[in-house]
């Protein structure tokens, strides 16, 4: 295959990765930014989203698009509810102590993963995409559904940006992120905001998973990769910075696509890790983050 089509394919692949990664990482970044805690179970919320999408689409009959649309709404809601409950029952009890939260969320990770193994099983199960449209380019064919993931992700990111910057809920979240105690002094129910942010973070991961599941299948171990990549993106992009997260996701996703097509996937991972190390050394707050107060 000639150079240009090869590059085009690599870029398209990279963009799909970026789109899903941006949503997942944004969830992690929100929780990281507002609550100042590390949610190690984030990848499991992603996995839950995919597994629930499978459960919903197989329960509903009719056109695959109908089941998928329902999954896209219901699955994140269920995951959000689970996240909210675990925030209330676990994280609040350890008072968001950074070390204790890490241990607690590792515990959550295993609990969710093993419950999925017990009730869902070890198989990788497919979900039918809402539509099967293959775009034939002069050099190769490409999945229309994959292109729609990029568009859907962009819309969702815009929506999140709108909520965070143009609505009252977003204002309350940003106030809590900026200074927790002052926010509380001004009558903001910080506890409820934390619960909501944790749920929202998990929902973003679940939405990303529902989008990806028609091309990747639901599997109980699928949460690990998105978790690691999300951490990389959040570190590079900067804590709680929406813009930083999106740009870092694009950087990691597209470079991963291009480097793994032209060189090797291992090299792509090496370079991503190297970027993380460099950012940590020269700009610990991330490319677009503000220094911690």
């Amino acid at each position, binding site marked *: *295959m000639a150079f240009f089509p090869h590059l085009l394919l690599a870029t398209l692949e990279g963009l799909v990765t970026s789109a899903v990664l941006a949503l997942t990482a944004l969830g992690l970044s929100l929780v990281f930014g507002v609550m100042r805690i590390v949610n190690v179970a984030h990848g499991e919320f992603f996995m839950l989203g995919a597994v629930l999408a499978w459960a919903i689409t197989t329960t509903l009959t009719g056109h695959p698009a109908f089941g998928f649309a329902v999954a896209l709404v219901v699955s994140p809601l269920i995951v959000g509810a689970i996240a909210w409950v675990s925030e209330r029952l676990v994280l609040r009890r350890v008072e968001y102590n950074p070390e204790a939260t890490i241990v607690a969320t590792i515990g959550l990770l295993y609990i969710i993963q093993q419950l999925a193994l017990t009730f869902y099983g070890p*198989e*990788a199960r*497919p979900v039918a995409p809402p539509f099967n449209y293959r775009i034939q380019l002069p050099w*190769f064919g490409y*999945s229309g559904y994959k292109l729609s993931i990029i568009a859907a992700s962009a819309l969702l990111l815009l929506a999140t940006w709108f909520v965070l910057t143009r609505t009252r809920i977003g204002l309350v979240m940003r106030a809590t992120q900026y200074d927790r105690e002052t926010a509380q002094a001004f009558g903001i129910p910080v506890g409820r905001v934390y619960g909501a942010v944790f749920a929202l973070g998990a929902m973003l991961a679940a939405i990303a998973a529902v989008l990806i599941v028609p*091309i990747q299948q639901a599997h109980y171990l699928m949460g690990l990769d998105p978790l690691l990549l999300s951490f990389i993106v959040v570190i590079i992009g900067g804590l709680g910075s929406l813009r930083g997260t999106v740009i870092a996701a694009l950087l990691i996703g597209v470079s991963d696509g291009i480097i793994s097509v032209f060189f090797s996937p291992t090299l792509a991972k090496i370079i991503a890790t190297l970027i993380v190390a460099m950012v940590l050394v020269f700009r610990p707050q991330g490319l677009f983050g503000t220094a911690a107060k």
Partner: protein
Amino acid sequence: MTDSKRFFDLGKSGLTRRTALKGLAAGAGLMAAPGFVRYSQAQSSAPIKIGFQAHRTGIGAAYGRWYEKTTNAAVKLINDAGGINGRPVEIIVEDDGTDPKRGAEVVAKFASQHKTDIVFGTLFSHVVVGSAPTAGELKIPYYVVSEGYHVASGKLNRWVFQPGITDVRSQVTSVAPWVAANLGKKVTMIYPDYAFGYDHRDYFAPAIKAQGGEVVAQIPIPPTESSFTKYLPQIPADTEVLYHVMVGPGVLTFVKELGEFYGSNKPQLFGFIDSLEAVDINSPGLEFLDGSHFWEGSPRYAQANDSEAQKAYRAAVGIDDNGASTTDAKDVSTAAHMFGCWETLYVIKKAMEDSGYKGPEDRAKLVEATEALTEFKEGPEHPQGDKKFNGKIHQVFGHQNISKVEGGKLNVVHRTSIEDGMYEPEGDYTTQPL
């Protein structure tokens, strides 16, 4: 203490510290003396304990579940027919998490804690390679159902056997002539980037070359990869046959992306069913495989010419004509591999009977008795077909099936002879000391 109390019934005679100490010492002496009281008891009726190293969790969990079902079905039959040497067989399961490090720990646990007679059952090659040294050190026979070439290569040790399933080298050697004659001679290989994939890479290329064909490209894919489109441009345009063997949850994606990439203008596909074990061949996205060919160890779908033994085996394990569970049609089995558990257990039975196996002190005799085996006849104990066993490399050789995907089923179109898969042995375990 509670045990010795009951044993000596100290309650009646009045317990002094001295008698209690004596009792304790005597009890300890009894426990320490090998083969004394406890042993003569074991000889008559105590069960033969088989440690089953199972992939209950981790990437191999789907295989592990069906390996367990097959094992339980075979053990039930063996016990119903009087067990081994008149003793019942007891299976003790430990999860290895499909992880080599954990695998080695599990083998050690079987040997020292559960005190099983042997260890059995593992599939994933990295777990076998990781566990084999421990089995060798602890001198406990280790019967694997893994199909990697590692056992036959002579690089493991005298305690490791693969008597129930053929190895990858044998499989690829035997299917190469058919591929060259029926599908094409210019082959591109796509395989996982670790030991199991390397067996394919190293032995298929020379095998197809011997048939006048050639491998035009080799594309290794990391086992954790979840998206494959980016590798597909590496497939040369003059490829006639795309040889694919993938393992893990990404397989459906792989096939789907191949379909999107090629559309209707595709090369011939030849795959190893390993990719699609436990996956319904009629899953959405797999339409692209229609008309393509697969290697199968034992056919998933019931065939018109199935033997009575094959039918009985399928009924005992609980799979229907589509190779799915009889209780849940969506629960597709790993039929191409799991028969190996069944056949391995019968090989163990035969070797234990030949050696008059009584207990762990006879393990060396059991190894020699297994090495002395040469042939297994097709029948209820070997439903997949007859086999030849090479005691020097601890590896069995058998028939392979090539199946075509037609009308949502896999139909066997060719069955290789045992000789097709024979190769010059590279090692000899029998020269190693026991």
